[in-house]
């Protein structure tokens, strides 16, 4: 079945006013269509505008140019159809772990008891059930990150905007949560935008991987990950195609870093901005 575009991003750009009245171009000419239920990862060097892109998709920050449409409607602000998981967690410090995870459900009118039960079920999944009554300040970075993920999953947004959600986790917990996210995604077919620095993570999870360059942030290329699903980690690791994708992306990332070092002045036109059409 042909799936319609969930998110359509056209000629999207963002610049910031900085000291001295100058403007800093963070993103330029971003074209990207994301199908409903698609899992798309974004790879790119630090400062290339990955977070900024997610903020605009979330409707938290207005674009400077271009347009974003979600399910055919232009984005005018945040909404519960798009759930962010912020790089900085952004937990409500005055709420306990449970209070944080219940918050979105309560906000959407779910009764206290049901919200509590659903939140506890999620906390079991992220292995934090015994920390339900802790306050964020009493948690480690990795624990906060898991609460942040649970808080967003709790209110069940159709699209997840995840900004390095596994960045602060230890290797084991990361693997567990990757599998958990895959399961949730395969079951509910959410649309996911997933920012990461982990090439293997991106290949393991994604349908497509977007590689970005910096100064200004542009799409360098988009790689289709044509691996069968459901994906099992142990099988993939010994899969030739999986390994080739990882190597290809590692090379691309390497290139992007070299380009940046070689060109102190921003290039007027990106070399290979691949425009990817909806399939």
């Amino acid at each position: 079945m042909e799936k319609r575009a969930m998110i359509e991003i056209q000629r999207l750009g963002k610049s910031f006013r900085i000291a001295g009245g100058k403007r800093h171009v963070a993103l330029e000419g971003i074209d990207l269509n994301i199908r409903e239920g698609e899992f798309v990862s974004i790879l790119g060097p630090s400062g290339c505008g990955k977070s900024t892109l997610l903020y605009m998709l979330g409707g938290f920050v207005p674009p400077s140019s271009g347009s974003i449409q979600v399910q055919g409607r232009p984005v005018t602000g945040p909404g519960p159809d798009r759930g962010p998981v912020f790089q900085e967690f952004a937990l409500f410090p005055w709420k306990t772990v449970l209070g944080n995870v219940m918050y979105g459900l309560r906000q959407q009118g779910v009764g206290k008891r049901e919200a509590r039960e659903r939140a506890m079920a999620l906390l079991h999944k992220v292995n934090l059930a015994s920390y339900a009554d802790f306050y964020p300040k009493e948690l480690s970075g990795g624990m906060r990150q898991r609460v942040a993920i649970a808080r967003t999953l709790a209110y069940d947004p159709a699209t997840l905007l995840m900004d390095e959600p596994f960045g602060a986790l230890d290797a084991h917990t990361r693997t567990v949560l990757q599998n958990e996210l895959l399961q949730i995604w395969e079951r509910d077919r959410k649309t996911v935008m997933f920012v990461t620095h982990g090439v293997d993570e991106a290949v393991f999870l994604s349908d497509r991987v977007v590689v970005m360059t910096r100064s200004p942030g542009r799409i360098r290329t988009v790689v289709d990950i044509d691996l069968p699903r459901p994906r099992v980690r142990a099988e993939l690791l010994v899969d030739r195609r999986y390994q080739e994708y990882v190597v290809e992306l590692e090379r691309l990332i390497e290139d992007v870093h070299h380009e940046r070092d070689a060109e102190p002045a921003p290039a007027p036109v990106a070399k290979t901005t691949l425009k990817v059409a909806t399939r």
Partner: protein
Amino acid sequence: MSAQAILQRLGAPLTVLVLLTLWELAARALALDGFPTATESLAQLPAILFDGQSLQSIGASLARMFAGIGLALLVAVPAGLAMGRNPTLARMLNPLLSAAYPVPKAALMPMVMLWFGVGDLSKILVIFLGVSLPLLYHSYHGAARLDDKLLWSAAAMGMRAPARLLRITLPGALPEVLLGCRVGLAMALIVMISSEMIARQSGAGDLLFNALDMALYPDVYAMIVILAALGFALDWAFEHLRLRLVHWAEPRQDAASGGNS
């Protein structure tokens, strides 16, 4: 109990005792008319504290003070929070805030009295002004320093802007707002007394300055002791309340910058 623990527990009473002793010795040595000894002054305490009229006076002062504080909480906290989240509003109101902050509020008393008379209303208004400024200032900074992503998270859950101000900005800025309250409380006491000095009618300040007029110096000092004790008690009670309300807050790195006035 170790010596240190004993010192810690007895620290405050010990300081008071030392101060009283120094006061006693200095007053005896100087033997000035207007400087009674500690024992003479403290001997007046029962006379004041068991006198119905004095108590009523002090009670009336406190009632006005709390009315002023309550009014300031209702007006200055929402205004400060809104300023902190709205740069345009902040740009408009900031000059006003910087200009009004250093003006001694009690000095406005004669003007306020022209409009509102010598009664309670004028005094409450002046206390309100005195408390409002630190409250406005701290609420503004607390809200401005709040991480946008907290508000974004709530917005993504479907919370609208007015609700966010109450349910996200207010609790998020609460540690700083309460610092403003503490400064405001001290300010309220000061303005309370000075307003009563200017508009003599009733109140703790009136008691104090009447005693001064009649050269009842032990009474004057007894009143000062009562006011100091009141200030201490209010601050102590407020600190307990504050810690209860913001026990969840991360300790701030720049705590030293708070609480100036």
